[in-house]
């Protein structure tokens, strides 16, 4: 359909109440035309639809030293397409310091989920940008250290007033250094002074929970330093970049919004023929497929390299291919050009069944929702079939040229992560061990024998700085075995536990097949004789093996030690947490009340001991330290 036809189709669908269809056509329109005028159209239509779609509301404040107004409709349109209903507040020009420092400022009144500090070198460090050749080494040093000192103090003030995420633009290098070629002939170059500031900002982000750096310098460099700026608009309207580049900055912001709002893919399902290698293995054979360091096989090796990077980031890889399993397995195992190995894939569907069905099966096998899948396939017909039957799957659009595949995967924002836990890096291995566990389960007849044979160890520890990233990640991503689905940021968790209002525990599970990693979180609050379970969640990969009972027995013990006589907890049903529905009744809790949000359950700790299953060895690290 042409752009005009798509628009007409949208105008027809909205009044007839076909909201989901309208939102799909809007996505198609945006894919074809992401111009500024199209953005206004898309935003206005989503504003009519927002009540009927399941969008994630998100509040973003932008503190800035230059004009960003034209980026806002672009950003809101792109966010709507990604399922995010974005409310944006802009600060006054150059008012960022007051906004951060004043607890009564509009920034804090707005109650943002995230804040972007969009500044540039020529505003914050005009001397380093413009006067470098006239500055002494001491002056450079004092300028640079003043800037990093300022940033540190702003971040500290910011954190005392809000738990919001903070994204800092780093400092851009000039297109041509003030000293020309001379700049790079010494170790006190303008370039190194600005690099030094950027390194300091990255350290600040590494040290501070919920603070991130947006590499503005790299963004400008990627699109060409000399192509980035529009000096006339800068001088007349304080807009430093050309119309085209407003889109690039918007996309960079969007890359942060995906992980911040949880709009990410947990697994990428890939096709084989003409995707992981060139040609068709069933026809061309091992010697015929294109996969090597040379052209044209190098394009496919590049893609495999990009997929390995995703694997290291904790994104699961799976295969869905129409092939004879023996042919495909032979290539996966033995082709000399393969960078990926069988162990990198958490699930395989090599068969002739339709791909939508295979994707459903893969999601089930990996214990994740279909909406956590991304799909990569060179064949537009397969992509269309998946898109039409499983609209929740993130289908990655690929052009016909394989040389572009790796870059498209690397640019896809659904694979972005802002923090990385040890679990993320080992996730692929956990799933491989899970396959072995499943095989064991099939050979053992009694459930208890199976539990015993697993030799499970549950290790429980209070929240520490080292486990914070993973605990917050679980709190924000776990949908299925999650009794209350309350989301907490890292900063909120720190605040809650350090103030003593709540206790937060993490659960690590090991068994004979390996370490499952940190897979469970519980948050409790005690008021006199009642201990309330605020949050209890577990990764689905350990559910059904009785460690949840072990975790509960620990919570009961802990409550008893602190003088509680009752243990209580809400079950708040969502679309996805049915696996947790029977948890309280099946552990001897009685329902106290029920309302529109859910049901409250209670257990008498004096009458009921709540034992740990004998086949789970429970270890408590500093259990009473809090």
């Amino acid at each position, binding site marked *: 359909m042409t752009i005009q036809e798509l628009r007409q189709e949208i105008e027809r669908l909205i009044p007839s109440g076909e909201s989901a269809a309208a939102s799909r056509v809007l996505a198609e329109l945006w894919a074809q035309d992401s111009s*500024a005028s199209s953005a*206004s159209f898309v935003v206005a239509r989503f504003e009519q639809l927002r009540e009927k779609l399941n969008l994630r509301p998100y509040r973003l404040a932008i503190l800035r030293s230059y004009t960003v*107004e034209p980026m806002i409709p672009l950003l809101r349109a792109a966010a709507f397409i990604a399922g995010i209903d974005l409310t944006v507040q802009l600060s006054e020009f150059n008012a960022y310091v007051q906004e951060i420092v004043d607890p009564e400022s509009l920034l804090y009144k707005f109650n943002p989920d995230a804040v972007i500090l969009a500044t540039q070198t020529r505003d914050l460090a005009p001397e380093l940008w413009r006067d470098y050749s006239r500055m002494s080494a001491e002056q450079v040093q004092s300028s640079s250290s003043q800037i990093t000192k300022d940033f540190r103090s702003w971040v500290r003030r910011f954190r005392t007033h809000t738990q919001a995420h903070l994204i800092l633009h780093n400092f851009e290098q000039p297109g041509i250094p003030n000293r020309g070629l001379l700049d790079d002939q010494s170790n006190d170059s303008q370039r190194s002074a600005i690099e030094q500031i950027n390194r300091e900002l990255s350290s600040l982000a590494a040290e501070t929970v919920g603070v991130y750096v947006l590499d503005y310098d790299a963004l400008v460099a990627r699109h060409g330093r000399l192509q980035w700026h529009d000096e006339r608009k800068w001088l*007349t309207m304080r807009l430093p970049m050309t*119309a085209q580049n407003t889109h690039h900055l918007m996309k960079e912001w969007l890359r942060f919004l995906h992980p911040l709002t949880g709009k990410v893919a947990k697994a990428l399902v890939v096709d084989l023929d003409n995707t992981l290698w060139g040609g068709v293995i069933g026809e061309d054979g091992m010697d015929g497929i294109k996969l090597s360091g040379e052209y044209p096989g190098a394009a496919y090796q590049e893609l495999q390299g990009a997929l390995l990077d995703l694997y290291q980031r904790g994104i699961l890889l799976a295969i869905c291919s129409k092939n004879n399993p023996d042919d495909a397995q032979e290539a996966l195992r033995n082709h000399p050009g393969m960078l990926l190995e069988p162990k990198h894939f958490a699930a395989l569907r090599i068969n002739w069944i339709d791909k939508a069905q295979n994707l459903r099966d893969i999601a089930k096998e990996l214990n994740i929702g279909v909406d956590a899948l991304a799909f990569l396939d060179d064949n537009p017909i397969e992509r269309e079939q998946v898109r039409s039957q499983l609209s929740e799957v993130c289908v990655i659009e690929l052009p016909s040229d394989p040389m572009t595949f790796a870059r498209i995967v690397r640019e896809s924002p659904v694979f972005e992560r802002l923090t990385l836990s040890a679990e993320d890096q080992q996730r692929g291995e956990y799933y491989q061990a899970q396959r072995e566990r499943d095989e064991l389960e099939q050979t053992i007849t009694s459930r208890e024998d199976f539990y015993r044979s697993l030799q499970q160890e549950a290790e429980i520890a209070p929240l520490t700085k080292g486990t914070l990233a993973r605990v917050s990640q679980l709190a924000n991503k776990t949908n299925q075995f999650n009794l209350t689905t309350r989301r907490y940021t890292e900063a909120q968790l720190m605040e809650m536990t350090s103030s003593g209002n709540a206790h937060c525990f993490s659960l690590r599970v090991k068994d004979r097949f390996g370490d499952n990693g940190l897979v469970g979180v519980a948050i409790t609050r005690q008021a006199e004789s009642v201990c309330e379970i605020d949050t209890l969640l577990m990764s689905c990969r350990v559910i059904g093996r009785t460690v949840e009972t072990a975790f509960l027995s620990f919570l009961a013990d802990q409550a008893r030690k602190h003088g509680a006589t009752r243990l209580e907890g809400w079950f708040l049903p969502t679309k996805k947490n049915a696996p947790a529905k029977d948890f309280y009744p099946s552990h001897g809790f009685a329902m106290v009340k029920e309302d529109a949000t859910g049901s409250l359950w209670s257990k008498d700790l004096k009458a009921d001991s709540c034992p740990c299953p004998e086949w789970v060895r429970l270890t408590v690290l500093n259990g009473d330290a809090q």
Partner: protein
Amino acid sequence: MTPPAFERIRSIAADVLQVPAGQITLDSSTETLGNWDSVHHLNLILALEQEFDTQFDPEEIDKMTSMERIVEVVGRKVPPS
């Protein structure tokens, strides 16, 4: 008779200013369209620069405050296709 680029410009203005295209004529200006404030003006200019693949000078941008003047400036910068 309307100038050749008028339709293209009008549909962009309708999107950016969030006004039905039918309400926009050659006489429409910052005076007659309430939505056409300074922020929308900048957005409109950038949308036009993208659509016609050109860059306007500050002097031109200041002048482009009515549909008639926009059509005139665009007509001068962009040869009719």
